[in-house]
């Protein structure tokens, strides 16, 4: 991570610098293109709508970055988002039924949010347990959890929607809609959450022993074990983080809609992986950054939003998105190669 950058800066290779900044350049490029093609693109209202969508992918992506850095993968994030929204919807509208007393308890919104986030953490912990203790491959364990969590989301309501999450004064559980919709200093709350998580996520990755251990486990698990790193704990924690991030996304969406639907978040895992990869994180683990993921989320967000604005066919939009993701990885390989050549010349 930091090491590579130091050496390169000393080589002052302009080409390499351009490649390194490519995520930023790509972002500037797509913004410029759509600003030119569509008069509405740069309006405040459109940018806010776009940023709200970006926040969803970015928050999922932050959690996913840790998992991928440790050489894992988490396919269950979309389902966890759906489950967490349903848990919140259920607790807000029906409360927790205590059969022996024949009463339902309604919690304060903060408690509901906490329980929903803990649901995400719990599912992540199960992922971690399956992967580290039962030696199930991450792809399979989280693929299974994709189904299990989605099924549980359906089971909560029998497949139907909780249509009104505004809460009731009499029950003391109003205020859930603030999370997704409140405007603070001109920006919606989800965007502030994204900013906060980006900062926290970057600090954890770069300045804590846990962060360093995640990079080490992804780089070489066997060596990490000999180094005294508790590999299983680190891996499990990455899935817990990913689960919590996914649960937060589920809450934001439920709050934005004012309703919880069990199908919320379907296919979101693919977007989350795409933004991480676009941000330059290696799927083999050990290499990548949180800030890269955020840029990746913005590139995808601008692209999706812009293509709608200029009236591109929905089907072409999907094709373009796929091509951009492939291109990102191709350019990444290209950069690795040039980097090696530059290092050789500087020797």
């Amino acid at each position, binding site marked *: 991570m930091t090491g*590579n950058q130091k*050496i390169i800066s000393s080589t002052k290779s302009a080409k390499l610098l351009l490649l390194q900044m490519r995520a930023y350049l790509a972002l500037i490029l797509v913004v410029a293109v759509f600003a030119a093609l569509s008069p509405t693109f740069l309006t405040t209202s459109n940018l806010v709508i776009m940023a709200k969508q970006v926040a969803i992918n970015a928050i999922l992506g932050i959690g996913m970055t840790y998992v991928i850095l440790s050489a894992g993968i988490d396919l269950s994030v979309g389902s966890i988002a759906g489950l967490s929204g349903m848990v919140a919807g259920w607790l807000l509208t029906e409360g927790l039924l205590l059969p022996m007393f024949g009463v339902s308890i309604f919690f304060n919104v903060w408690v509901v949010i906490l329980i929903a986030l803990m649901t995400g953490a719990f599912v992540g912990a199960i992922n971690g347990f399956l992967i580290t203790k039962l030696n199930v491959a991450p792809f399979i364990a989280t693929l299974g959890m994709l189904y299990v969590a989605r099924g549980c989301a359906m089971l909560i309501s029998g497949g139907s929607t909780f249509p009104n999450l505004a809460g009731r004064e009499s029950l003391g559980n109003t205020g859930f809609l603030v999370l997704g919709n409140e405007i603070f200093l001109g920006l919606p709350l989800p965007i502030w959450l994204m900013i906060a998580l980006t900062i926290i996520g970057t600090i954890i990755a770069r300045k804590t022993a846990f962060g360093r*251990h995640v990079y080490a486990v992804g780089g070489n698990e066997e060596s990490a074990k*000999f180094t005294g790193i508790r590999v299983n704990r680190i891996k499990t924690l990455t899935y817990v983080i990913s689960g919590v991030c996914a649960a937060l996304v589920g809450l934001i969406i439920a709050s934005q809609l004012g309703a919880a639907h069990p199908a919320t978040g379907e296919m979101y895992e693919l977007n989350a992986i795409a933004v991480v990869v676009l941000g330059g994180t290696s799927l083999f*683990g050990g290499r990548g950054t949180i800030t890269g993921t955020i840029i990746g989320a913005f590139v995808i967000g601008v692209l999706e939003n812009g293509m709608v604005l200029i009236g591109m066919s929905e089907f072409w939009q999907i094709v373009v998105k796929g091509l951009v993701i492939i291109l990102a990885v191709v350019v990444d390989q290209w950069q690795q190669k040039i980097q090696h050549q530059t290092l050789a010349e500087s020797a």
Partner: protein
Amino acid sequence: MANSEISNHTEPMTVSEKPVLSAREVTKKYPGTVALDNVDLDIYPGKVNVILGENGAGKSTLMKIFAGVEKPTNGSLILDGEPVRINSPGKALENGIGIIYQELTVCPNLSVTENIFLAREIKNRFGVVNQKKQRNISAETLKKLEQPINPDMPVSQLRVGQQQLVEIARSLKDNVRILIMDEPTSALSSKETSILKEIISDLTSQGVAVIYISHKLDECLEIGDRFAVLRDGKLVAQAERKDASLSWIIKHMAGKNPDELYPETDHKTGKAMLKAENLCLPRTEGEGYLVDHASFTLHSGEITGIYGLMGAGRTELLESLFGLHKLATGSLFLDGKAIDGFTIDERIENGLMLIPEDRQKQGLIQTLSVAENMTLSSLKSYQKSGFISNKLEKIAVNDYIKKLLIRLSDPGQPVVTLSGGNQQKVVIAKCMLTNPKVLMMDEPTRGVDVGAKYDIFKIMSDFAARDTSVLFTSSELREIMEMSDRVLVLARGKITADLRGQDITEKAILDACVIRNKEEKRKSA
């Protein structure tokens, strides 16, 4: 100094024959290093051309250039007096140049025959492989190698040594004129090695030029006809067999006299640092033990060497002490404190550390920088209120780069850009930064060049002098005898000898290695 050496020796040699392959002013640059620097080298037909040098001296790079795997940054190759461009392994083979790599390149899931013909299958015009013909040629080639290997057997079922012979068979069937062997015997048993030597002498008598690389210097002296020594990417000396000797080789490889290789050890035995009682590690398959009721006490201020034949349980003993095996039993006391049942990180915190046997697989995190690798086991020491302080980290890193003489351009550079010896020093630095009371080193000098070897011995010796204790293993008897204040001999997981001072003799050690074998023969007879 190097030039005078070359001119002294090269003149009489050029008379005899014309070289088949020559490197002219070959230079190769890699990230962080100049691997080859203006190398002029001639390879002669019908001779065993031995290339010597420390790790990172540039031998493997030169071989890769000969084999078309790497392209030189500068310079050219001359084949039969004509300049050639060898820019792919296929092109090299067309020119009759074959290579057998140090690391196995066989595909374990395929059969012996399929491996021998991999990427060069005998096909008809529809692209269908002629299995029968391939099989016959395989069987014939294996027969030439005097190997009872079934050509239809999957390679995964062969021993490592036999797998290597499959690689050799792959080159032989192509009728190469120049055969490069990069450490071919590192995985072979002594019987397989002697077969290989016969094969080599057969090949040279047919006029094939063999280029031979090995760390086993006595082996090189035994079979070599011509010797060339590389150091730091430069060709520093050449000699014919009559002029070459072990001390000549070491002198040029390390730029040092062989007697200076081992630092003086003068240690004072202190208090008990690590006490192991009835340490056992049962086999996972079958009955018996990999480590069999081993009991010993290590004292501060001492270097204890563990010697034993392959499979005697050296690595397993160290790994059991370090807590890597869940099945290991027995009591352990570190500086008076019971540590059995502790996890690895708890053992490290209490002052036990292991430098693992396999640097690449177990020692380094290849994606991290030199600095990040060095501090990985001791991150707690650089934390301020939970966050890593770059300043504290940097101080520790720079301190150990100086102490261990690690050669690099920037602590932030990727660790993979360092040479083997320097990578090993990074692993050692990582371990020493945890301030161990007992430092275990599993084959610390394996695959490390002579110069770095001396540095590592010096580090060991200095470290033990600080009232700490060192436990190390080596498969080289000389290293064990020179470096140890005390020698434990392992045979079949049991400690069969505990020698000190004058008692450390070659005979005593080797006798202890085989005692149990004899006993068992007696029992079974």
